[in-house]
């Protein structure tokens, strides 16, 4: 006999809880039992007392907000499915929530269509729970997910987020039919997305109306992309001293582009190639002291973040009498960008966002 699934709804607004308790309890095919909690402490007590299949929670609540509840729930109940349902549109919170391990992140539906999509996604999530299978999809690579969806003859829309950049892959009946990323579509967009080494993704309900622009099979697409990436990685040149170094390239071109941005005085990139870091730079005569500072600062603060359980190190900004410097990472690459001392904090933040977008793309 199938055990009735339990959903726990957490929000600080009683009206919202009443509405969604009714919607979820009566309109999902598996008729789950839906319980509610008005605050994080109550929700955590309820999770402690009984087993739940799904936690749906708001982010912005007094005293204990959604991220704090999420951090505790994720640690104590790794099998619990978690969906964020928030009224605030903020890409930073979305990225942070996915980094902490949510299954889905939704804006509170405002139209009937959005409500329909939300209910459908909850139905799919709970169905996956009853059919068994493995959690931790986020630990799979994008290639794994594409292969899984295509082999299962599924239809889905994959939305991939890599920092400030977003891409989409449309899958219909096990075939990749279109892709979109950074102003490109079809196969070039697909290849670009697959070059992103890190990021987060969501599996959204399919979009059957999307016209087909990719006609290569998914195996062919993956093979072509893998070959292109291998070719790019294997381009090496020999220096007069006989040392093999990566051909230059994309990184040097990128540094030159970055140097044109307003306020940028120097750029230093530490790129991981075949488990070894190489440095490329612009605007610095002797990069070694600065690269030592950059690597040391990254290493120390990465360790500190782990010790404090503060999450990933995102950015370091240093201000001095003569200049400002920002440290950030894009995938395996560490960047140190120097700015004039007069650049405002907002301008620096926007320029760094621009730089990271360029680097990823």
């Amino acid at each position, binding site marked *: 006999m199938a055990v009735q699934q339990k959903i726990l709804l957490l929000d600080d607004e009683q009206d919202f809880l009443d509405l969604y308790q009714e919607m979820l309890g009566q309109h999902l095919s598996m008729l789950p039992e839906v319980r509610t909690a008005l605050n994080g402490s109550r929700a955590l007590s309820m999770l402690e007392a009984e087993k739940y299949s799904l936690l749906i929670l708001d982010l912005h609540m007094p005293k204990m*907000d959604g*991220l704090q509840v999420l951090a505790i729930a994720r640690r104590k109940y790794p099998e619990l499915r978690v969906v964020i349902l928030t009224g605030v549109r903020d890409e930073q919170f979305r990225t942070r929530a996915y980094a902490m391990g949510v299954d889905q992140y939704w804006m509170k539906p405002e139209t009937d269509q959005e409500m329909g999509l939300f209910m459908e996604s909850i139905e799919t999530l709970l169905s996956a729970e009853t059919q068994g299978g493995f959690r931790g999809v986020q630990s799979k690579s994008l290639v794994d997910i594409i292969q899984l969806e295509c082999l299962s003859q599924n239809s889905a829309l994959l939305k991939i987020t890599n920092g400030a950049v977003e891409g989409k892959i449309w899958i219909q009946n096990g075939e990749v039919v279109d892709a979109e990323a950074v102003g490109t579509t079809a196969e070039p967009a697909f290849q670009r997305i697959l070059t992103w080494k890190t990021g987060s993704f969501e599996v959204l309900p399919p979009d059957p109306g999307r016209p087909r622009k990719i006609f290569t099979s998914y195996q062919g697409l993956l093979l072509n992309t893998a070959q292109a990436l291998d070719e790019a990685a294997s381009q090496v040149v020999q220096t007069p001293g006989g040392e093999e170094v990566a051909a230059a390239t994309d990184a040097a071109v990128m540094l030159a582009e970055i140097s044109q941005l307003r306020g940028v005085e120097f750029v230093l990139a530490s790129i991981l190639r075949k488990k070894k870091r190489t440095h490329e730079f612009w605007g610095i005569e002797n990069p070694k002291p600065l690269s030592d500072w950059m690597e040391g600062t990254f290493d120390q603060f990465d360790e500190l973040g782990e010790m404090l359980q503060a999450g990933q190190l995102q950015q*370091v900004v240093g201000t001095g009498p003569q*200049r400002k410097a920002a440290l950030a990472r894009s995938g395996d690459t560490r960047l140190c960008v120097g700015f004039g001392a007069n650049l405002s904090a907002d301008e620096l933040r926007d320029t760094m966002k621009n730089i990271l977008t360029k680097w990823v793309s």
Partner: protein
Amino acid sequence: MDGQGNIMTSTLPQGFPEAQIDTIATCVLTAFQNAKKAQMPLSELIINFTALRILARELRGGAIVFLMPTTANQPGRKS
């Protein structure tokens, strides 16, 4: 903290692990000192983690450090 990493005064709760305080002090002072060695002296560092922001101001070799958790409850936000 002073230039040797000794904590001079703190508003952290007593239960805050001393080892973590020492590590924060070491990381911050090392970052300031090594920046100076790299000919890029800094007077302020802002370190952003997913769930925490650290603001450190250099004070004549020592530093004052502010620890600020980052949560969804930012001013002016409503759900």
